[in-house]
């Protein structure tokens, strides 16, 4: 398996092998190092890689499979468990292949999108939409303006779960970054100068800040996408932040119009709030 796709920690390197196992019915898959000797895989961003590189891997595997089935004389068959299978007939893949190598390269594209009109903003500009809902429960020390996020719960629709544990990791991680934006993370710039260029003063959430999460994952497939999948990495980064800020407002009554929320915002102009 060879693509130029960047594994950045999200688990694409795992998924490429999973798709090959499912589509070709094999067990051992080697993912070659990503480099420019193969065509572009596009960016590891926009939550697009499972869709796009997953789609390319699947399409290339389908092409390989078709050649194997023709070789086996079983055009309507499938590949499963190391065998070529059709009806009652099952032939070991190794027997079909012999010492042949079957290699295919495929490009994969999503359906076309349109630009936005420069005046009206009208246009079918997006490929796919994904949604996430969060609930946040916080405890607020209203006398000091300090916050503890007690629990975060999320419901997300991913179309098809490709790798459950990797998916949970993406939702936990996106939620943590949303928590960071709500409460802790800000590059403080004054007169164009960065005042806190270090992890001493640019605070990222740790296990002490991030609470346990409850997750519910829905699978309503997108008919236009490979396996019906919906990109999953970014949606949790959106809804987590406003849920946390809404929870703090619920506790302390302050308007909180700026993120990250600071203790002085919670305390308000009087410098102190009296708990209800």
């Amino acid at each position, binding site marked *: 398996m060879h693509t130029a796709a960047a594994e950045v920690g999200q688990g694409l390197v795992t998924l490429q092998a999973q798709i090959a*196992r499912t589509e070709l019915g094999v067990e051992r898959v080697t993912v070659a190092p990503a480099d420019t*000797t193969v065509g572009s895989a596009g960016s590891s961003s926009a939550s697009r890689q499972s869709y796009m590189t997953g789609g390319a891997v699947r399409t290339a595997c389908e092409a390989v499979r078709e050649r194997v089935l023709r070789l086996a004389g079983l055009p309507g068959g499938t590949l499963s468990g190391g065998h070529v299978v059709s009806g009652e007939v099952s032939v070991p893949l190794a027997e079909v292949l012999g010492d042949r*190598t079957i290699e295919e390269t495929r490009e994969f594209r999503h359906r076309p999108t349109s630009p936005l009109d420069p005046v009206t903003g009208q246009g079918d500009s997006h490929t796919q939409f994904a949604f996430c809902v969060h609930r946040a429960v916080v405890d607020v020390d209203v006398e000091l303006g300090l916050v503890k996020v007690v629990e975060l719960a999320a419901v997300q629709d991913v179309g098809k779960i490709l790798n459950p544990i990797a998916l949970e990791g993406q939702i936990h991680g996106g939620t943590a970054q949303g928590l960071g934006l709500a409460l802790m993370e800000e590059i403080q710039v004054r007169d164009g100068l960065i005042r806190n260029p270090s992890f001493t003063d640019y605070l990222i959430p740790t296990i002490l800040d991030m609470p346990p999460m409850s997750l519910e994952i829905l699978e309503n497939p997108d008919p236009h996408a490979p396996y019906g999948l919906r990109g999953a990495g970014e949606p949790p980064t959106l809804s987590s932040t406003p849920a946390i800020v809404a929870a703090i407002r619920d506790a302390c009554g302050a308007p*909180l119009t700026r993120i990250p929320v600071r203790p002085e915002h919670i305390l308000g102009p009087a410098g102190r709030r009296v708990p209800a």
Partner: protein
Amino acid sequence: MTKQRDPHAREGAPVTGRSFAGGVGDSAARPDGVLKVRGAFAYSSDLWMDGMLWGATLRSPHPSADIRGIDITEAVKLPGVSAVLTHEDVPGARHYGLDLKDQPVLAIDRVRYQGEPVAVVAADHPETARRACDLIKVDYAVREPVTDARAAALDPACPKVHEHGNIVRHQPVRTGDVFSADVVVTGEYEVGMQDQAFLGPESGLAVPAEDGGVDLFVATQWLHVDQEQIAPVLGLPPDKVRLTLSGVGGAFGAREDLSMQIHACLLALRTARPVKIVYGREESFSGHVHRHPATLRYEHGADRDGRLVYVKAEIILDGGAYCSSTPAVVGNAASLGAGPYDVANVAVDAYGVYTNNPPCGAMRGFGAVQACFAYESQMDRLAEACGLDPIEIRVRNALSEGSRLPTGQVVDMPAPLTDMLRRTAAFPMPRSAGTADPRDLPGGVSNTTHGEGVVRGVGYGIGIKNICFSEGFDDHSTARVRLEV
């Protein structure tokens, strides 16, 4: 080849064979998981080649200044230094960039942000390279920086950061014509500058090749877009600039723009030696783009039952000194600015502007994050004004499959938002406060409270994000698969 009956098949049942574990839908283990947990995984900062040199970068201390001269004489004399390069040493194109090639490889006659690269050094030790940077004398004429993004967007008298003006992109969205309602809530919101804060610093190794090209090993998000920008600067055809992905320690958008790639290649080709560059943590904060800070002014109008009539919004995204992917961020904020709600009348103006603040670009959420904070805050204000709870106001307005977005695009895939909202509200509540462990309380181990002054709150949020690239971009991916025994 023999065709045989499957011995595991039931009489008359279709033969399916036994599937292997680790396919689609399984929690297949990461191939690099154990290595990473054990600290044995090779990240790009671990790259090593015998005989390699170390590169370092001299950066501007000023957010805005003219460069009157650069004197490298003392730096070149330092023992151990093999090369000191400025813009004069760039063989090809002197600018690069994702959406617009407006960013100098090395500053030419101006610097536009604190941390902008001015010169690079290669030496036999990283500390020598850094000391050589300190010996480079740059004659700056400091200017007043442009730091107010709203002025950059709306005030024609605001000084220009670039000749072509301060507005990188203005994207309006207009639909419907009713902009009055019984219940109106307004709000002004601000989103601070978040950082991707990946743990693996910017790093890579450039190795000059015998064919006059260069092999670059680097942590990045998109090998080919890096290659497309590097090759013209080096004056080489793309097939002489070969990239291999090294171990990536997180990205979150910060590796979408180039950092040290061109610099390392320039030094490697000049010195005919492999050159490694690793940014320190403080340098890293200047070494990559950040999330666009934003100011958002919203007005929501609804009927007395809380049903949205209109949404108006002015969104200003501070793109900092260079363009990066600001146009695409503006496109997202504009098109998704009203949120996942059915609303017939929308007037959004989203701006991405130049300032002398740190450059901003891609970060997970990409323009939709900033808008989401604003529109969700607004929905809660609307709920309060209408006497509804936060779930109910959202259920009454949530879009669904078949809904038309303010851009006219129809949501042609499942969008079970009402179901998702109800399920979220139905999660059991966590155990109520009343714990003695300070780690469970605000302030944590600072021991600032034992429960006094602590009030619990609950809040909700929902977001809409676009997946994949947008606005007509011809996006694609490629895979090569080889099957053999």
